[in-house]
């Protein structure tokens, strides 16, 4: 927890830490946000398209190092018009997946807007808000967004980039775990700074979302 805590006591005090994290996935209509989530959480893929309206929330428990992470992942409708509406769901999130479809250049071009939109809703001063970019549908033949272009864009913005396929389960787990670990780091950072700044007596109040 804190640096004041003697090293030897750590395992005794935290046999296994539990952290709740809220992640969101955004991106243009039909890029495969829901499919990516289903692949990650349920290990399934559906050929049929099922539109998402409002929000749908999935949860998954993973173990990272010595911490149990309870991920709460918010899936939102991707039509441009819904952006103002779904942006209320970004509040309090610890990390974000930006998704696009490598066969759809428009979905790639829209990433910047989605990103700005998310950052505007998060604490605007924060530079370290974790985001990863997923180029989905690499299993399809008619790819339109070159890998180098996508990679370059992400590098310029300092975001990890993954080429993924929700259908064939390529790189999906890796991408989510990188985001989860970054979100965890950020979470630990905020907890520590809270402890340094002032001692909060209500434990975990800002982050705990379980009842």
């Amino acid at each position, binding site marked *: 927890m804190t640096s004041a805590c003697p090293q030897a006591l750590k395992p005794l005090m935290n046999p296994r830490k539990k952290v709740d994290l809220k992640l969101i996935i955004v991106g243009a209509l039909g890029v495969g946000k829901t499919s990516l989530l289903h692949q990650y959480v349920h290990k399934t893929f559906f050929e049929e398209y099922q*539109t998402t309206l*409002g929000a*749908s929330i999935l*949860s998954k428990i993973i173990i990272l190092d010595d911490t149990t992470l309870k991920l709460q992942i918010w899936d939102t409708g991707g039509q441009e018009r819904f952006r103002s*509406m779904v942006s209320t*769901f970004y509040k309090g999130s610890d990390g974000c997946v930006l998704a696009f479809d490598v066969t759809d250049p428009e979905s790639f071009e829209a990433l910047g807007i989605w990103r700005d939109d998310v950052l505007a809703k998060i604490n605007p001063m924060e530079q370290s808000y974790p985001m990863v970019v997923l180029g989905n549908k690499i299993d399809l033949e008619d790819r339109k967004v070159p890998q180098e272009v996508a990679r370059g864009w992400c590098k310029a913005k300092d975001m990890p980039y993954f080429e993924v396929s929700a259908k064939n389960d390529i790189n999906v787990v890796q991408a989510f775990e990188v985001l989860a670990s970054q979100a965890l780091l950020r979470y630990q950072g905020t907890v520590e700074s809270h402890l340094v700044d002032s001692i909060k007596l209500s434990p975990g109040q800002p982050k705990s979302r379980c*009842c």
Partner: protein
Amino acid sequence: MKGGPYHDMLHSILGAYTCYRPDVGYVQGMSFIAAVLILNLDTADAFIAFSNLLNKPCQMAFFRVDHGLMLTYFAAFEVFFEENLPKLFAHFKKNNLTADIYLIDWIFTLYSKSLPLDLACRIWDVFCRDGEEFLFRTALGILKLFEDILTRMDFIHSAQFLTRLPEDLPADEVFASIATVQMQSRNKKWAQQQCSGVLLTGVSQELGEQRREQSLQDCVTPLAISLGLAGSPENSLVGGAVCAAERQPGNGKRKPIPQTLRLRGYLHLALKQSSTWHLYAFRLKPVKSRGSFRVGFLMLELALKQNSS
């Protein structure tokens, strides 16, 4: 799905709609509404009913994603939520479970995505008669039916439960639950007025103001009114006929929720009087010629031919 039954019909209707209302265009969720209509009507009639259904103020607010107006709807919903189910309301509040999480899906698709088709049709049935109030009443009915379970759930489980309702929802229990919901909170009630204007007396003046403006716009297209699918049922042809048949002694009492599936009847009755409305649509809103809308054009031509013969 492409190649599946009704795919082309659905495509025509949605395409034609984007021609008729380019200002609204295609919005996610529309296909669910169109699908229900296709199952009950032929293509041309389904298109007419679809357009007029979407001309209703509540549907317009949602499909145009008029965020301010939607929030007002949610706020109004919460007034009745707290009144009817104070315990669950407090529980949701504590867990930060806001109404938009489940209401967006329910209201956009008029329950056709979240409920079994036969149950959704029965809800449409009463919605055609009672108006938008019934959509929100239904939401409260569902919450009430599952109040005990939901009060014991944490945020994530409640949210998941409500965004994916059980598939085997017992229709009779749902309706029995809806029937016990009071849409009157002290001096506030969800009142609807003619020409698709809706006022939430006492709940929100603002909504009324915004509405009045919008309903004037809606009035420009007399089709919606002549169809009876828009506006207050009492003042429309369909609703009027049905309400007259149902009118009870001691008017003012709430009419019982009909137990039979009458959607077909409502829609056909609505369509009887509508032969020329889409001509109005053409004159009022010249359709922009864009290649991708050709399907829509063909559909409109078809509709014109069918109605003029």
